[in-house]
């Protein structure tokens, strides 16, 4: 780990002042940044310990859930209101990491976690995300876990979050504060595709800090699921995951939302494909067709070609679970 200076602000304003230094990094739960510092992937000159900022509350007002950036993944997932009214969010969080990591990891940190691409983590290799312009070792390399949608010739990394896949379906808003004041970023615009700037995971500006995530009440009742497929049953990143939610009225689909994890540089939504489900019957033939539609432009990299078929089947299965009101159980893992 490199040597750095350390400050511990008590207010958001002081934190933003400290984060004006382009070599500063905000530290919350530490589960990703400390790991990256040990690998010499992150080499901050200044660590800004934001754990004392007053961003730890979970507020439910009317139909909105507002989660402070420093709320831990555990506190959020097990909060009684979240369990009762935002169960898709709870389910996705509990599908990720381990209880120890969820106790430390924060809401803001989950959004800002970096990719788990092996080459990004290995400073002895070329990686455009870690060292812009150096090339991408994953293209033509070991790429079993990599992207099948939205990748570029510069980067085929995927965003590793489970929680963010649910937030994409739930239509969350990211509240940020920076040198220019406060602003709100719709969740779909928060993470970005790699293009020719894979070093940028998201649309935060220099010096901006996430202060909260706001989430409207879902309209889909029990017609949701979070289905995560991985190399072992627990404590592993998704090869493919699907958050699915359906509004069903009088036996037909009124609205649908589908987001994929583990397949792209951001949680992947295809609004056009979602809209194609409107007015249709919630049945396997329809689900298989929309799955094909979502994967129509998918491109494998060799070792991850299997993900295209896996994602197609996972979408159809997740929609069947949602239609049946049978969300995936994250403990016994039996896929119904």
């Amino acid at each position, binding site marked *: 780990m490199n040597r750095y200076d350390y*400050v511990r602000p008590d207010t958001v304003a002081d934190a933003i002042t400290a984060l004006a230094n382009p070599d500063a990094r905000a530290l919350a739960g530490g589960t990703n940044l400390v*790991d990256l510092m040990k690998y010499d992937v992150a080499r901050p000159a200044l660590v800004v310990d934001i754990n004392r900022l007053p961003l730890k509350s979970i507020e439910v007002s009317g139909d909105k859930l507002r989660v402070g950036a420093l709320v831990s993944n555990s506190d959020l997932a097990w909060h009684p209101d979240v369990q009762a009214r935002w169960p898709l969010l709870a389910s996705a969080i509990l599908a990720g990491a381990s209880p120890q990591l969820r106790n430390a990891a924060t809401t803001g940190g989950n959004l800002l976690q970096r990719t788990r691409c092996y080459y990004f983590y290995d400073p002895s290799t070329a990686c455009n995300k870690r060292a812009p312009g150096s090339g991408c070792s994953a293209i033509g390399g070991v790429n079993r876990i990599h992207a099948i949608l939205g990748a570029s010739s510069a980067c085929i990394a995927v965003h590793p979050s489970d929680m963010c896949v649910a937030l994409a379906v739930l239509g969350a808003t990211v509240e940020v504060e920076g040198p220019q004041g406060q602003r709100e970023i719709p969740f779909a615009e928060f993470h970005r595709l790699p293009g020719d700037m894979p070093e940028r995971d998201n649309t935060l500006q220099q010096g901006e800090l996430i202060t909260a995530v706001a989430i409207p009440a879902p309209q889909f009742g029990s017609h949701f699921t979070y289905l995560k497929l991985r190399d072992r049953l627990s404590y592993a990143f998704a090869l493919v995951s699907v958050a699915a939610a359906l509004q069903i009225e009088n036996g037909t689909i009124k609205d649908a939302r589908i987001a994929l994890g583990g397949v792209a540089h951001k949680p992947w939504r295809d609004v056009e494909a979602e809209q194609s489900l409107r007015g249709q019957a919630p049945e396997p033939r329809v689900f298989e067709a929309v799955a094909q539609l979502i994967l129509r432009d998918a491109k494998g990299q060799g070792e991850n070609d299997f993900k295209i078929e896996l994602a197609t089947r996972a979408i159809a299965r997740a929609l069947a679970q949602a239609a049946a009101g049978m969300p995936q159980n994250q*403990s016994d893992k039996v896929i119904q």
Partner: protein
Amino acid sequence: MDQFASSRIPISLTVNGQRHQLAIEPWVTLLDLLRERLSLTGAKKGCDQGQCGACTVLIDGQRINSCLQLAVTRDGAEITTIEGLADDGQLHPLQASFIKHDAFQCGYCTPGQICSAAGLLAEGHTHSRAEIREHMSGNLCRCGAYTNIADAIEDVMQSRAAMKEAAE
């Protein structure tokens, strides 16, 4: 805002009931602090990357991977390690149950397993065998003693539930 001119930052930690005033560099992890400076070598450095759980301790009652915590960020916290679980020479019920069920082979992961299980019981979200397995998934055992580890935890969980029922 606390600004630190020196590379050593003053912190206070209560570890297994004992208060320590320390001056510590901001890049020292809680795990290294416990092992190297306080000579508490129960928490193990397995992977040092948050992937194995051997370093699990309780911070303010919550189980956390101490290898991924910078010690300075936990200024003022109460830490319990495996050395602090026994009560006045009396083994913690989980320690006794791990022995009873032979829930280890080499023993390297055991301090982390037991601290993690103590956190699991305190959380109160675990009610079945499947949930024990899932909620203990952050602790790897390379010897593969999982069956007996789950038995040991289930035993304590059931006797606590029985005691709670009897009290009601």
